[in-house]
């Protein structure tokens, strides 16, 4: 369990890096989609399931179970100890995460599934990390514009709690905003995650006034967001803003192993996952408020 953060020598004009392009994503904005995961996030949600996308810099990560100890003894293996460069590692145990995100190149990849988008009303989703963070924003705009030019449906998955100077540019290239509703209390949210819900709401109001389609995403995390009062407060915000769709996302542990690979501490290690039954109250509360709910997202 080691990690090393290389200096950010990235020379992309936009500065954005991506870690993964996931084809056949089916819970991220409607239909069959390709999701581009951008690297880097200014916030630190303790339950984050994509910790590889927290740092804006390329990272060498270490997948210990994949190592076959080809270059040294078992007990000294590790990302720092291993003399191989990531590109020479035969198994991918040592991996450099963070590839310069080139809009044209990524467009070529997402276009490969065009037939699937057309048949399923799907498209492209940019996620992260925080895809609208300062370092990622200009890539996201350029990439979404290119997708739109090809007639693709576009979505972004974001906290929206970042400064956005010209939201009209973003609204013009984004079909759907998937917007996080996590900890409703501003003080608590700033303390735990760093997210400022009031900044989000300000951005949301401007985007909604431009006619943007917004789907709220509410992760249900015991001890952080799952309590009835927080859920209630989130729902009230959604209603005040005029949002009618919410994805309820039960807590899961699919990111657990990634913390090991990056060598990061994970506060929620070993906590039980939630099933659909565990979020029934949250779903009822949302439905009771007239929201259309999809568990896990669609």
């Amino acid at each position, binding site marked *: 369990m080691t990690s090393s953060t290389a200096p950010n020598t990235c020379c992309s004009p936009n500065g954005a890096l991506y870690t993964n392009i996931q084809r056949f994503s089916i819970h991220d904005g409607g239909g069959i989609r390709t999701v581009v995961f951008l690297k880097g996030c200014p916030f630190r949600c303790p339950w984050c399931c994509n910790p590889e996308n927290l740092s804006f810099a390329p990272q060498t990560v270490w997948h210990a179970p994949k190592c076959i100890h080809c270059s040294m003894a078992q007990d000294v293996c590790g990302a720092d100890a291993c003399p191989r460069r990531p590109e020479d590692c*035969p198994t991918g145990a040592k991996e450099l995460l963070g590839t310069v995100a080139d809009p044209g190149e990524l467009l070529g990849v997402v276009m490969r599934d065009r037939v699937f988008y057309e048949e399923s009303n799907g498209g492209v989703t940019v996620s992260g990390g925080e895809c609208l963070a300062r370092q990622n924003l200009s890539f996201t705009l350029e990439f979404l514009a290119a997708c739109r030019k090809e007639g693709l449906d576009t979505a972004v998955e974001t906290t929206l709690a970042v400064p956005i100077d010209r939201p009209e540019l973003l609204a013009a290239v984004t079909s759907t905003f998937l917007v996080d509703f996590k900890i409703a209390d501003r003080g608590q949210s700033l303390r735990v995650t760093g997210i400022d819900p009031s900044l989000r709401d300000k951005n949301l109001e401007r985007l909604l006034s431009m006619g943007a389609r917004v789907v709220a995403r509410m992760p249900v995390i015991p001890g952080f967001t799952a309590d009835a009062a927080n859920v209630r407060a989130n729902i009230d915000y959604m209603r005040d803003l005029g949002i009618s769709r919410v994805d309820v996302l039960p807590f899961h542990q699919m990111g657990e192993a990634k913390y090991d690979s990056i060598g990061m501490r994970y506060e929620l290690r070993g906590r039980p996952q939630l099933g659909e039954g565990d979020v029934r109250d949250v779903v009822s509360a949302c439905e009771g408020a007239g929201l259309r709910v999809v568990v896990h997202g669609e």
Partner: protein
Amino acid sequence: MLTERTKHIKESLFSHPRRVDLERATLLMESYRQTDGEPVILRRAKALRHVLECHRIVLDDYDLLVGNRTATPRAGVVSPEMSPYWILDELDDFPTRPQDTFEMSEGDKRFYREVLYPFWKGRSLNDWYNEHCPKEVKAAEGDKVFAVAQTDKGQGHIIPDYEMALSRGLGDILEECQARANAHPQNDFYRAAVICISSTIAYVRRYESVVRERASQGDVAPARRDELLRMAEVLSHVATEPARDLHDALQLVWLLSLALQHESNASSISLGRMDQYLWPYYQASVGEGVTDAQIRELLQCFYLKCNTVVFLRSTASAEFFGGFPTGYNLVVGGVNERGEDASNQLSYLMLDLQSDTRLPQPNLSLRIHRDTPRGLLEQACRIIRLGDGVPQCFNDEVNVEAFTRRGVSIEDARDYAVVGCVELSVPGRMYGLHDISMFNILKCFEICLREHPEGFDDFQALEAAIQGVMSRYVALMVRGCNACDLAHRAVAPTPLLSVFVHDSLEKGADITSGGARYNPSGVQGVGTANLADSLEVMKHAVFEEKAISYPELLAMLARDWRGDGDEAWRQRFVNRYPKYGNDVDEVDEISARFLRFYGEQVERYENPRGGHFQPGSYTVSAHIPLGRAVGATPDGRRAGEQLADGGLSPMVGRDKSGPTASLSSVSKLDNVLDSNGSLLNVKFSPSTLVGEGGIQKLSAYLRAFSRLGIQHVQFNVVDRATLLDAQSHPERHQDLIVRVAGYSAMFVELARGVQDDIINRTEHVL
């Protein structure tokens, strides 16, 4: 839901141990003893007559349809007339072999050794084949590139014209045979046809009298007596007359299919487009006031009947086709002869019945085209989601063209259906030897490397040399197939079947003598995924990067990656070079190039029936034994490890870019060439398909599949944990059905290797 009646029937399927049944073999021998010296085709017809007259008919207290192949359901019928040898060798192994076990009594074993075996020894189809198969072909078979199939069993893989039987009735067909026989007294086929059809009519009447006799017995409840009398009336009618309604039609189809089984004892005498030819009879039943519930129950009875017949294979064959696939392929949907959507209410119902019966047969298929109604597609998706592996999906947008390019008329091509697993055939018009051989392309690659220790100047030279080896073996394979083709003509003609395959009656020739309208021979090219992955590694690592030399690589393969440092190389080859199935053009195109080359080689050759060879690409479960024949390969495969499953599927565990990328890779193949049929496996975790959203996404996936011009796709929807649990606790999963390859089987009845393969196929999960 099953009714009380059909629940009883389903339980009875599994209430007897599966056993080896010698009745047919014995009756055949009795008849052959009487007909020495007569023309073969007449001997075969008379032998069929003897079986139909004498085999034991069994009646239960529930069923609405009659017709039993064997006295107990799911018994294994041996065919020593095709080959007595493997049966003798394996007599003691039937109860204990790894795949498809059967009980066999000591008395039966003795009878086989002392009576049946000595009678058929030296005069079976297998003897004829061995005498006439060229020496070079035999030697080549030893190289394990190909193995000619059906040299020890019936040919099957055909769809009789059931529509003709239903609309004309057996009486009218008999009249035609009789008239032709009178006009051509020298034609033995016509004389045989008369014997066969009149025996089939008598066979139907035998059932009628058994049913009537039962109805007359005092211990029969009044309600059952009424049913029996109604069944007797149906039998009395369909013995000679056209069907009037659905009950008539299902009864006649089943008894005719049984008579055909008694004649051939072959895998895959398939059902064809049942929603099409049953449609008028379904409408008539509805018109008579038969309720939906009654219709559903009748169809359930028919579906359950399809599970009473299993096919007994040799141990080697069972490894290639594990899980008793009998091949009651039943197709719904697709276009009509004018290219318009042909679906009807029966298409929906025949898919939905799977949710009642939950058994491997009939093997349901849906034909998809651009105008397939949304509702039908969604219905199919709901059935796929049950996890039984059906329906498998076929794509009219490529399969119709595949046939027209082979000279099939557009109307006949639009009427295609499915036999065996995924083989495409034209119902009632094609005798296609669809499963006559598999061709191990990866083995050709291995032989090529071995023949060239000096290496190659460049990558193109390597590819050309592999193609040279392929051409050499294709030429040998077709000679073996043609010897087998002629063996069936010489020893095992099928006059009853031929009556129901046009244009045999017009031509006056049995199908084995070229009577059918279309006469291809289908040979499957297997192993292109592993070959492409291997060549991609060599192209870069050996020829471009020069990271490893050709002799070093060969040495590593020869020692199966066991040398010092080999594992790092193997991992590098597995992980650091693109693999087929991930939508990477360069490697996908290698696969396409070799599959195309194989197809172009194959189609140059003719068979003795005036037809041409045509390529297919499916493995059934043969990727396991075919893999065992090949040493380590540069794609990181270990010696003896399985090949990629399916035929078109990527190698297990190597497709890491999701199910859209794998479809995209497959779409780059020249799929229209594979007119014999090809196979693609896709596995989804159940969680991917939950809810209405899951149905919508699977429907979209299938529409995209159709637009991408891929011939076939089938799904396993069952999670890994369930399969692992079924391996350790088979008793808890007696009802678990999985897709093997072009057919489904009970998971617990599969050998460990096949089970492992299904577990390891990449599961697309989100």
